[in-house]
């Protein structure tokens, strides 16, 4: 053997050993020693093969801006009262504006000073007064709006991550995407409906005092007293499971929110065996809760989650421990999930499910089986065709083909790429196309032999002339494959990955490995005739 041959053989052998080693954990799983399994992960299967859920959630960031403005209005009212500034009212107006209506110039100046101190990001504008009042306008700047939106999406991602972590899914993926979207992938999930309930819930917990003197019937008919809000209490009949909704009128103003929670846990009621969620407030929350209950003994307080009243108990006495309970005819699962979302925190803005792709485990397994079957049958057909057409040289091409598939799978494992169903199709396609490089070379060699060259010279010329053609032809396919990457995620990307890896691998195996095999046989002695 010549030196060049030895070096090339060593290189190919090294690649093969590495490839086989990397595929070990995929093929033999836990029967391998620990160090081996630590070195290489088994091949990653896409959601379409192993089953799982792919969700794209859109964060309604405009709502976050709305609620930020609402908060500012509330705080402004409190501040104005605190400083004894006399004002008519504080409103929200279109175009992200807050309007303070005051009676005289003096109060206007005071309001301006107060707003500049407390909300420096708001831009003051004075509009012509009407009817003897002075309207002070404050506009939220565009950069501030952008910041609120941005924060809402970041915060939503964080909250969703907390929820997913508590849900207990192995290897979840959460990614922020353009346009306020969040991608969530939950492999191997068993109960998709529960996951959607858990992730889609805003979980905005609010405590509101009931308007005792307002009639819910009038409110339903459209006659809502000023400062009131019509909500519905959800009641589940323990026996029939039927859900009914009872109208309740509460004060618009929220006295306490779930932001001040420190913990939430599921407990079981001893008397009726009903699960409920026990919540603990943090220090600030506990103090506020103490004040509110002290001031409202004998009145009813509604516990509102995402605009649905869960219960509206009467405050019997002042509660100073900083804990409360939410009961509402929950099943145990509902109570568990409610505790999870409360612990994980509320979403700063509602989310909508924009895309949902869920594959059950049974379909995934079927797809794997059918994919493997088509690879085997397709591969076998090609192997037979090559043997018949090119005889011994066809055998060389077949050895190379098998190596090719091993290398493709190994590269997927080593780079941590994901194998999807279209990805398997990509492998099948590569098998068909990998043969192409060898066909090109073999046809060239046949042409050279017909011109009367010796086997060695024909081989040399065949490889040389075919090489550039092969590269040109494959680079263009590579361009198409690379363009597919812009789809970012999902099965299509899987196809792009295997196609790309397949092209690189077939170039390597066809140009270097098959040549090596020929050279090896030619080096062992004089060859009169090529079996081609």
């Amino acid at each position, binding site marked *: 053997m010549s030196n060049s041959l030895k070096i090339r053989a060593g290189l190919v052998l090294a690649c093969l050993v590495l490839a086989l080693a990397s595929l070990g954990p995929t093929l033999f799983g836990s029967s391998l020693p620990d160090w081996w399994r630590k070195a290489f992960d088994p091949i990653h299967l896409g959601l379409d093969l192993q089953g799982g859920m792919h969700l794209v959630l859109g964060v309604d960031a405009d709502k976050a801006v709305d609620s930020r403005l609402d908060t500012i209005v509330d705080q402004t009212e409190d501040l104005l009262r605190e400083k004894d500034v006399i004002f008519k009212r504080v409103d929200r107006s279109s175009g992200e504006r807050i309007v303070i209506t005051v009676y005289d110039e003096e109060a206007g100046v005071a309001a301006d000073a107060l707003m500049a101190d407390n909300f420096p990001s708001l831009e003051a504008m004075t509009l012509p007064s009407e009817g003897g009042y002075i309207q002070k306008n404050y506009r939220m700047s565009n950069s501030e709006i952008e910041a609120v939106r941005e924060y809402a999406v970041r915060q939503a991602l964080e909250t969703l991550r907390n929820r997913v972590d508590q849900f207990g899914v192995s290897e979840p993926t959460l990614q922020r995407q353009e346009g306020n979207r969040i991608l969530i992938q939950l492999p191997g999930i068993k109960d998709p409906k529960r996951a959607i309930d858990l992730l889609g819930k805003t979980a905005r917990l609010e405590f509101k005092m009931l308007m005792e003197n307002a009639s819910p019937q009038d409110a339903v008919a459209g006659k809502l007293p000023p400062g009131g809000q019509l909500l519905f209490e959800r009641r589940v009949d323990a026996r029939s499971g039927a859900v009914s909704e009872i109208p309740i009128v509460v004060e618009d103003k929220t006295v306490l929110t779930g932001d001040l929670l420190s913990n939430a846990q599921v407990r079981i009621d001893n008397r009726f065996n009903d699960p409920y969620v026990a919540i603990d407030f943090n220090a600030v929350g506990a103090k506020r809760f103490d004040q509110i209950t002290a001031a409202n003994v004998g009145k009813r307080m509604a516990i509102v989650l995402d605009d649905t009243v869960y219960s509206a108990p009467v405050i019997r006495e002042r509660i100073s421990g900083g804990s409360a309970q939410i009961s509402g005819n929950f099943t145990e699962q509902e109570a568990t999930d409610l505790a999870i979302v409360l612990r994980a925190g509320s979403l700063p803005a509602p989310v909508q499910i924009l895309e949902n792709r869920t594959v059950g485990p049974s379909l995934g397994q079927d797809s794997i089986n059918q994919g493997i079957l088509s690879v085997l049958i397709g591969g076998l057909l090609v192997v037979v065709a090559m043997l018949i057409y090119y005889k011994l040289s066809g055998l060389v091409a077949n050895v190379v083909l098998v190596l090719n598939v091993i290398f493709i799978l190994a590269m997927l494992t080593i780079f941590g790429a994901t194998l999807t169903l279209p990805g398997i199709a990509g492998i099948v396609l590569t098998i068909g196309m990998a043969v192409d490089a060898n066909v090109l070379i073999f046809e060239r060699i046949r042409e050279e032999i017909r011109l009367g060259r010796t086997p060695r010279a024909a081989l040399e010329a065949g490889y040389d002339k075919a090489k550039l053609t092969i590269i040109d032809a494959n680079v263009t396919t590579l361009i198409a494959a690379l*363009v597919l990457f812009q789809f970012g995620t999902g099965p*299509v990307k899987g*196809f792009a990955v295997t196609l790309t890896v397949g092209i690189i691998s077939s170039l390597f195996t066809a140009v270097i490995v098959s040549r090596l095999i020929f050279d090896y046989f030619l080096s062992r002695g004089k060859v009169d005739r090529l079996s081609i």
Partner: protein
Amino acid sequence: MQIIKNDINIDFVGKRKLAFIVSGALILVGLISLVINGGPNYGIDFAGGTLVQVKFVDNTDAAKIKDSLASLDLGSMVVQRFGDDANEFLIRVQESTKEKDLSAMISGSLNTVYGDGKVDIRRVEMVGPQVGKDLREKGLLSIAYAMIGILIYISWRFELRYAIGAIIALLHDVLITIGAFSITGREIDLPIIAAFLAIIGYSLNDTIIVYDRIRENYGKHKKEGFSKIINSSINETLSRTILTSGTTLLVVAALFIFGGGVIHNFAFAMLVGILVGTYSSIFVASPILILWDDFRTGGQKKVAAEGGAK
């Protein structure tokens, strides 16, 4: 073994008019079908909507499934048999409501009618209208990007006229494949875009191998005339073209038959695309070089004649 004889010399180039008529007719039929059907038949990836793949334990049919879902008032709904299993169905609903979880409603209804455990929800896909629109744009853009990238690469490695010939051949392949989808009533969704790009890559592969030979022969026998060189180049590479297309068709056919329902349309696209791609690299991509050449020299003659007249 050899399928193609060494001294084969089929007059492919001479039959280019016939080939253009055949290609034109194939494209036209596809376009007519597209017009009749009011555009491409987009799957939920591009049109938005909800799709549920259900496998039933007991025998059932599409009508019964529709009946059991009637109370949900889902708007336009399509129920069709899916894959090889007689009791596996696809339920597609155009609407994709954000408020309600349609798939949960569907599975709830089916469970009530058929009984718990008799219904296996195998797959759910919901794509909102906005996402569908985004994906449609992305899909079209990706095909455009691929073509531009290829145009640049071939112009660089060969010449502009080769690049234009190759791109026309690619458009030809993709148009015919889209037409075949329309005629057979198949839906175009995300994996089909992947298939289109694979077809583009594959068809190009074929075209470039012929072009490469044309370029090589052009250097050697410049005197023989362009169309003769093209014809002999096609003949010289014919054996390879048929063998490679043959093996690729074998594996794609395996995928089409054994790959299962989810990949069925993808395999169909590949099957059509490879057949058309092979045809186009022989009958479209290379003869176009002659057309281009005729056009150019014809133009020059005209200029020369006008110049002479002055």
